């Protein structure tokens, strides 16, 4: 068997804080084959974004190995990483802070192509227009700056930018959380089509199990920095083993299934419906 495209082994991350080191990621291991999608789920604050930032080498892990297509990223210096950067991209959870306020939307999306020196200006504009269309942003908005877009529109600028350098690995951190369901469906379809075409590998962080079911092949469930459950998506969603995964399943708010639930006491209603 060939080696997995992305392999994370014993990943550990300590943040230094005023109160001393804080372990946000604790001995996390998983792998994803090329052209596949792994989802990371888990409660707010459990360390999902921290794992993503380690993979992207936006923070240096305290311990562990991150191998991408056979290269160990964790050991590389920034200068050695730079020529590889366009191969792995990330859609950030915060669609506000992650877009340069001085650039137009068009420039933001074209930026990764430029640093790669791949295309002429004309080719870049054409590609930007194509990406805008693909994520459902109007072509009339190309010249606007990031703060002149709605929350969900900014999130889509982030997605277009991440796709612009045609990466081999895309880490999506709550990439569709600000999108209404119809735009979300369009973006998910786009990501799936690109995967079919190019064999791109996704790490998909989401708190929406419906989305996770749709897009992922396998799931890891995190809790307080550790992985507590993992497996094929269908297995984890059909027979969740840990308490946390079971509660998540139970609490998934499906509007059509809620006719019986009286508003006002949601937590108890959900517990009772179990």
């Amino acid at each position, binding site marked *: 068997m060939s080696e997995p495209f992305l392999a994370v082994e014993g990943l550990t991350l300590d943040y230094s804080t005023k109160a001393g080191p804080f372990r946000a990621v604790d001995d996390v291991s998983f792998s994803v084959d090329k052209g596949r999608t792994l989802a990371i789920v888990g409660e707010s604050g459990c360390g999902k974004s921290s794992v993503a930032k380690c993979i992207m080498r936006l923070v240096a892990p305290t311990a562990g190995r991150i191998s991408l297509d056979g290269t160990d990223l964790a050991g590389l210096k920034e200068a050695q990483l730079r020529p590889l950067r366009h191969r792995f991209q990330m859609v950030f959870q915060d669609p506000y802070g992650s877009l340069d306020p001085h650039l137009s939307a068009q420039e933001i999306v074209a930026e990764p192509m430029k640093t790669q020196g791949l295309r002429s200006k004309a080719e870049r504009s054409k590609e930007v227009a194509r990406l805008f269309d693909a994520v459902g942003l109007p072509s009339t908005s190309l010249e606007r700056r990031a703060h002149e877009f709605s929350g969900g529109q900014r999130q889509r600028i982030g997605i277009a930018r991440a796709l612009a350098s045609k990466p081999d690995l895309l880490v999506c951190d709550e990439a569709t959380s*600000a999108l209404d369901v119809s735009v979300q469906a369009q973006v998910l379809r786009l990501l799936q089509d690109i995967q079919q075409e190019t064999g791109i590998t996704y790490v998909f962080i989401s708190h929406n199990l419906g989305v996770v079911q749709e897009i992922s092949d396998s799931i890891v469930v995190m809790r307080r920095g550790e992985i507590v459950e993992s497996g094929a998506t269908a297995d984890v969603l059909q027979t969740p083993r840990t308490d946390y995964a079971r509660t998540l399943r139970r609490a998934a708010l499906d509007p059509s299934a809620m006719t019986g639930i009286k508003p006002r*006491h949601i937590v108890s209603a959900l517990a009772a419906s179990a």
Partner: protein
Amino acid sequence: MKTQTLTPPRGDSATTGPLLSVENLCVELMTASGIVRAVDGVSFEIGRGETVTIIGESGSGKSTTAMGLLKLLPRDLAVVSGDVSITGVDVLADRRAIRKVRGRTVALIPQDPMTALSPVLTVGSQLCEAILVAGRAGSKAEARDRAEELLRKVHIRDPEAQLRKFPHQLSGGMLQRVLIAAALAGEPDLLIADEPTSALDVTVQAGILDLLLEIQEANGTGILMITHDIGVARLVSDRIHVMKNGRFVESGDAVDVVENPRETYTQHLLDSVPRLGAWDESAAPKEG
């Protein structure tokens, strides 16, 4: 945590009329490529103890409606017209009126965390400031206790440690809950919540929604909820308005809108919700 001032004691208008009344609200944005009418003639009311929800596609004008009626849009960017009164105070006509009601009478949970939080101050100092400015604590120590209590209420673990952190040291969902705590700090009569649970997993989300409804039940708080999650809308709302291109295309009782949508657009929104298949609850649980 900026722009919050004391309100005068509640007058008669606060107890009789609606908490919020919006009539023919229009917001025009001045952009480089011309004027964009982002909100186009929107009208609605919220009474004491009521939740009214705006749902609609990304870019339809939901946040602009909220920011417009609170006069939070920069004056050189937006022209706001129509009639908006909050607890009987006409806030569009008088520029100073809105400052009097922000914080204690009306509070906003903004969609963008950093419009409300400064990156260079700790979460604790900002939350305490909000509490003190709203006049909900007599001393710094009291404000600190109240801040801790608020974080606990929004299900943040180890609140004392989180208060000492800077915003960038919190996760996305923790930050969102800090904003909720800050808005609740003033115990407002009217709460405007712009996608307040979009970064939260369903378990935490359920806890937050319960908290909001509990506060509503206890204090008669009116809530304007903005969400793209129809499941959330169905659970918490009395009435739902569906927004598209700056207008309400469908309005009605929450149950009616979700169960018998009249507009094909609303139907489409409902159809696109990803549904989970069946699951087996009898499978042996594992400690986790």
